[in-house]
């Protein structure tokens, strides 16, 4: 029942916002519905709901974490949208609002489904629902970005489907009479799964969902999509759209680890994680477009996530933590980047210079976000990245640790160059498209997110630590 509400309420909102005629107060639907959704999620934290009879639906800690992250961030974004859509009167916002709602519904579906097929359906819905966000600006560049996003996304999603089928084939036909895609039963009968099919499933799902996550070398759609989408859409993509496929990868990883394919899976994850970090390092250095820079930084963080999962329970713990930190920080970064972009009418170092002079709060937030995302204390990413480094040394992956540190440094150098030249300096004369200063509604959401990041960096709530520990152990089969 609760599952139905979690998935259904946002869907209903989406439909209603499709029906509503008035552009002005359509956006107000979102905060209302999202706050209801968030309260439901909080209720779930109080008492973890019992799985549904067929075992298709259920919430474990990992799912719950991703779900709460998505819900909370979308709520914040919807507050931002109120002002943003008011500023962008020239564009009809029906599709935009609707797809925001559908995204939350699809994300909830992904989080609560314990059935790989269902999870796949949710993921596909997520992909399709986010296309309108990217295309919001309706110019040739955004069109191109959307096209690339669609093609790459569909390719990935198709491969993920194939992986799902492989998974289904991994269970011997007559061994179990139940649905062969229900995660719990898969874990239950992990011993009798046929390993070749399982391996295939892992590879296909990793590549498929990795495409959605934006792991290198499947990341190529990411800079275009993030760069051309409005700031808030970029935040949604980086915060929500990446954590859901990560959840999918976690699921299959869990199955593999309980089926005794731990080394195989970890090896692949470490490989692809380091590859992604390296790619990000290469492309961030000398990046003149600060939205694309954020995209590559997101590629880097996705790499950190999978790397962490590949490094054993401790690494997984910190990877899940980093998932939260990255989501929140990226949200703040994209929102402030959007503000700066609008204030200068350009998103490259050549247009935007000395943002501190024109939109002080957004610029400060952008700078802080940069500091935070690169893992400096007192912000939260420090805890998780330091932890992943520790677990790399602890599990004896010295090479991985070395690469990790080197790539972190490289990415920092690259981002610093861009961010500092955007934030500092003296702005040249106002271009005509420039907006006037900071407006409270558009700096409040990033402030909320950044303060959350700061708080998490200074104090980890115990319930959160507990949940992270439990899911980390579960995922690595160390129950």
């Amino acid at each position, binding site marked *: 029942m609760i599952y139905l509400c979690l998935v259904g309420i946002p869907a209903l909102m989406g439909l209603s916002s499709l029906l509503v005629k008035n552009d002005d107060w359509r956006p107000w639907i979102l905060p209302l519905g999202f706050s209801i959704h968030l309260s439901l999620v909080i209720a779930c934290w109080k008492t973890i709901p019992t799985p549904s009879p067929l075992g298709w639906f259920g919430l474990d800690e990992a799912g719950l974490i991703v779900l709460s992250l998505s819900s909370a961030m979308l709520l914040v974004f919807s507050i931002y949208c109120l002002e943003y859509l008011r500023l962008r009167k020239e564009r009809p916002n029906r599709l935009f609002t609707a797809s925001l709602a559908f995204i939350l519904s699809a994300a909830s579906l992904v989080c609560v489904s314990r059935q790989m097929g269902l999870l796949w359906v949710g993921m*596909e819905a997520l992909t399709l629902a986010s296309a309108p966000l990217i295309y919001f600006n309706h110019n040739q560049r955004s069109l191109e970005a959307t096209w690339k996003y*669609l093609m790459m996304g569909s390719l990935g999603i198709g491969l993920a*489907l194939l992986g799902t089928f492989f998974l289904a084939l991994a269970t011997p036909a007559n061994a179990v009479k139940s*649905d062969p895609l229900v995660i719990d039963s898969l874990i239950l009968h992990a011993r009798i799964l046929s390993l070749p099919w399982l391996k295939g499933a892992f590879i296909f799902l990793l590549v498929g969902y990795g495409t959605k996550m934006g792991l290198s070398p499947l990341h190529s759609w990411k800079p275009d999509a993030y760069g051309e989408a409005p700031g808030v859409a970029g935040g949604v993509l980086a915060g929500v759209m990446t954590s859901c496929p990560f959840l999918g990868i976690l699921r299959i990883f869990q199955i593999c680890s309980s089926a005794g394919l731990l080394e195989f899976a970890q090896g692949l994850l470490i490989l692809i994680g380091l590859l992604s970090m390296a790619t990000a390092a290469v492309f961030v250095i000398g990046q003149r477009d600060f939205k694309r820079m954020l995209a590559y930084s997101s590629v880097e963080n996705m790499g950190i996530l999978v790397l962490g999962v590949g490094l054993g329970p401790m690494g997984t713990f910190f990877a899940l933590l980093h998932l939260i930190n990255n989501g929140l920080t990226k949200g703040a970064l994209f929102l402030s980047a959007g503000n700066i972009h609008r204030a200068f009418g350009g998103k490259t170092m050549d247009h935007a210079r000395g943002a501190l002079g024109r939109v002080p709060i957004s610029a400060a937030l952008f700078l802080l976000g940069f500091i935070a995302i690169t893992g400096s204390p007192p912000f939260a990413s420090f805890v998780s990245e330091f932890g992943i480094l520790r677990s790399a040394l602890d599990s004896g992956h010295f090479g991985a640790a070395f690469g990790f540190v080197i790539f972190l440094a490289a990415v920092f150098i690259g981002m610093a160059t861009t961010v500092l030249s955007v934030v500092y300096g003296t702005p040249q004369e106002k271009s005509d498209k420039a907006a006037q200063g900071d407006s409270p509604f558009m700096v409040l959401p990033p402030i909320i997110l950044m303060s959350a990041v700061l708080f998490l960096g200074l104090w980890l709530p115990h319930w959160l630590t507990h949940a992270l520990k439990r899911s980390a152990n579960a995922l690595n089969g160390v129950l």
Partner: protein
Amino acid sequence: MQAFSQILLVLIALFSFYALGNSSLIGCIRIIALQGMCLGILPLLIDRQGFGIQILLIASGMFILKGFLIPRVLSYAIREVKIRREMEPLIGYNSSLLIGAFLIGISFLLAARLPLPDNIRTSLLVPVSLSVLMMGMLMMIVRVKAVTQVIGYLMFENGIYLFGLAISYQAPWLIEMGVLLDVFVAVFVMGIVINHIARAFDSINTENLTNLGD
């Protein structure tokens, strides 16, 4: 039954092979429609327990969707565009056919590594589906017209779906429906986007879509 399904599978593979070598958009769309129809028939032949109601449902859904609706969407999408054939592709037709053959080889090689799922009677299913899938990818890669790429994507989907038949006996049909629906919506959205592309650039050459990048 057995023989029929074998023939049908070979036919499907040949269809995509043919599409790989075909230069006219309309032709490709027709081929893809045919392939879709074959896919629709296949479950009836391949499946163990005769004509179950859910098998019928899926089969008919497939038949309609892949045989008629999707081709219709595509032809609608390219209505404005004058160009009817794929001009200079990235890789010539002959060489792409060669690569296709090579891919078929790879897919057989990979399929050999996988144990035969015990409820499938024909050993062709896995390799054929893999090769159809790979040829779809190849088509997405080597063609420059947006529509052709969508066709490639469809072929790729068909391959996956072909594979899906292997589990149709146990996968709940709701899932299959969801899958079908998703595929349809995906193609629908793509059609819309192609339409926009056509209007924005008054051509559906993806050569125009290379402004973004580092």
